[in-house]
């Protein structure tokens, strides 16, 4: 694992962030950018998305240390909220008495455990203890396979799948059917019974039907029948899943693991199409976060000479559907992107 705290003090980090944001602003054509160190409170009329980049995040293998992620997330949270102190920022979204469920994505290219653990550590700043944070996905088997350490009791961060609830298969889902759009689903009891607040910790990666797997599609893992949500390039089904009332009511924050995103061949891992972007995307707006993530993938595809997702017959239409359902902002020109570190649209060659 790579640590970042021993390389950089907070002061030097902020100084570098402010400097690179200026560069990013000039490099990002007409897209709005703001400096993290100077971030005012977000405009009520615009959705803010913070992208923080650091070389330590781009490390291959197990990725960065959770402590490094925590430091960077603190900075990103400050920029997102416009607060001077990270604890004040986290306190905008979570309370010490909350039970926070962090939905990670273990299908194919997974959310790095360090990223999810870094988030759990960061929210500890407001007094939310680790044992009140649960990292979860559909099954414990998938979590273990993705490198997570399972824990259902004790003092640390809890980590288990929906299938760990109850004594029989299927017990982990609601008894009632929840309907959002055309399809009905049972919802994970981790959402319904085990948490008061929800965060989506997804992976930025390509999807063969939807164009992008992001923070919205991550909630396919919160319903019992995601297979019924893949017609028509997953549109409007991704938005429907995210708009399920129990999810929508509890969702406070979204985080996309863009440490080593994948721009083609997803959702299964394909090393040849991953690259060391070294980023984390943080927002309270799932639609805006996915829109920005999609732009990063599109820029990378263009940089390597690949067709845009539209031409590849898998445009990410569900992002607009997310806005139509009132989940957030889909148009880039109405999204305020705060870039910390390297410019967010600098995707390399």
């Amino acid at each position, binding site marked *: 694992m790579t640590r970042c705290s021993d390389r950089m003090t907070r002061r030097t980090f902020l100084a570098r962030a402010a400097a690179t944001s200026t560069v990013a602003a000039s490099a990002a054509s007409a897209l709005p950018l703001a400096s993290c160190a100077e971030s005012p409170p977000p405009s009520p009329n615009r959705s803010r998305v913070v992208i923080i980049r650091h070389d330590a995040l781009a490390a291959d293998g197990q990725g960065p240390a959770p402590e490094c992620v925590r430091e960077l997330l603190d900075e990103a949270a400050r920029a997102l909220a416009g607060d001077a102190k990270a604890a004040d920022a986290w306190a905008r979204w979570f309370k010490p008495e909350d039970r926070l469920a962090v939905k990670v994505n273990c299908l*194919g290219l997974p959310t790095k455990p360090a990223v999810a653990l870094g988030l759990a550590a960061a929210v500890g700043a407001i007094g939310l203890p680790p044992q009140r944070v649960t990292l979860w996905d559909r099954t414990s088997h998938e979590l273990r396979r993705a490198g997570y350490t399972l824990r259902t009791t004790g003092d640390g961060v809890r980590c288990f799948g929906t*299938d760990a609830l109850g004594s029989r*298969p299927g017990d982990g*889902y609601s008894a009632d059917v929840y309907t959002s759009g055309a399809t009905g689903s049972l919802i994970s009891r981790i959402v319904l019974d085990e948490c008061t607040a929800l965060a989506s910790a997804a992976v930025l990666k390509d*999807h063969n039907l939807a164009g992008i797997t992001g923070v919205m599609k991550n909630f396919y893992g919160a319903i019992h*029948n995601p*297979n019924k949500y893949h017609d028509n390039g997953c549109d409007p089904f991704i938005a429907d899943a995210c708009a399920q009332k129990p999810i929508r009511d509890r969702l406070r924050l979204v985080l996309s693991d863009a440490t080593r995103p994948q721009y083609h*061949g997803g*959702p*299964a891992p394909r090393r040849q199409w991953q690259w060391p972007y070294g980023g984390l995307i943080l927002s309270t707006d799932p639609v805006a976060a996915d829109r920005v993530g999609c732009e990063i993938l599109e820029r990378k595809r263009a940089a390597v000479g690949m067709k845009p997702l539209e031409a590849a017959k898998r445009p990410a239409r569900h992002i607009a559907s997310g806005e139509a359902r009132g989940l957030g902002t889909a148009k880039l020109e109405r999204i305020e992107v705060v870039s910390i570190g390297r410019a967010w649209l600098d995707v390399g060659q």
Partner: protein
Amino acid sequence: MEDIKRTNRREFLRAAGAGACALCAARALAEDVAGNRVTDGAHPQAAVHDAMWFEHLPDKAVRCLLCPRECVVAEVERGYCGVRENQGGDYKTLVYGNLCSINIDPIEKKPLYHYLPRTMALSVATAGCNMECKFCQNWRISQFRPEQVDSLLIPPENLVRIARTRASPTMAFTYSEPVVFYEYMHDAAAAGRKQSVGSVMISNGYIREPALRQLCKHLTGVKVDLKAFTEKFYTQQCAAHLKPVLETLEVLADMGIHTEVVVLLIPTLNDSPAETAQMAKWLVSHMGPDVPLHFSRFHPTYRVKNLPPTPIATLDRARKIAMDAGMRYVYVGNVAFHEGSNTYCPKCGKVVIKRVGYNTDASGLRDGGCASCGQKIPGVWTQEQALAFKPKAAKGPKTSPAPGAAKS
């Protein structure tokens, strides 16, 4: 209550006796399958089996060619049915012998009324379905993935053995949607034929023609749920399309396999006289007047809880419309005691097969015909007849490609 008034004491006791027999059979079956339970919640590796009917696509994706959905499935993903998964660029079924339901039912429960009356069918299902009907009676298995339901692991040859041991001349692939566990049904039906056990598929008919023709080499009967006769109903209530189901019915008629059709009449959604008349007209012209047609009573469930049960009068009306259109064997189903449950001779009008609940009296049937006037009654009346079935070859030059993985 109106139904019960039509039943006398003797009929009621007879129906109760049939229920008690079924209970005994279920208890015996439980002994047969003890020890086969899958307890870890995940789909067992032994149930993972090469899928039939798919083609490889670039980047390790596959296209499923089993049903009309033709799902394009990336590596690590599953098809719409939830039971077929792309593993490393190859398509696998996760439910080969991974049964979530196993019972011994009267064949009349399927319902098959012209197929070996008064016999039992070893009836099995796995999780999964290639539709999402908002009124599904079995949604607790059909709309679930295999790892989300209790299951037993019973390989095809064991299923045949159980059928023989429990005096079931037929295996019925039913409850959820057997098309999605095609490979298991195919192999079990083939193994059954070799040991004189027939196989019937109780299906929504959502299957592509080549796969259906291959399967029917081993089946001995089919029941198809024709959900409605409008595209609107199929798209809005079932997340599917009408045309492929009608094509399936045509192919079944073309092959000559014994087929019965069931229509669940749901108040206001598919019960208009005009729609019923159109449907009956189509069935007469494409399958002939002798195909048994069942109008079943809807009960509120799953996502359609805002509508009442189908009035008996609606079922009676639909039956009359279909018979007026020329259909000879039209039944009323899901109604415990109803004269529309009986089979009547189209020539002399006498009762040929009387049904009260799942109790069946076939004394009016002799040598496959009416005992009173000798009129032949279409159907499968002996096991020898069932096992002798061979599908007719496809009309025209169309040939079926070999099942399995095809190169795109």
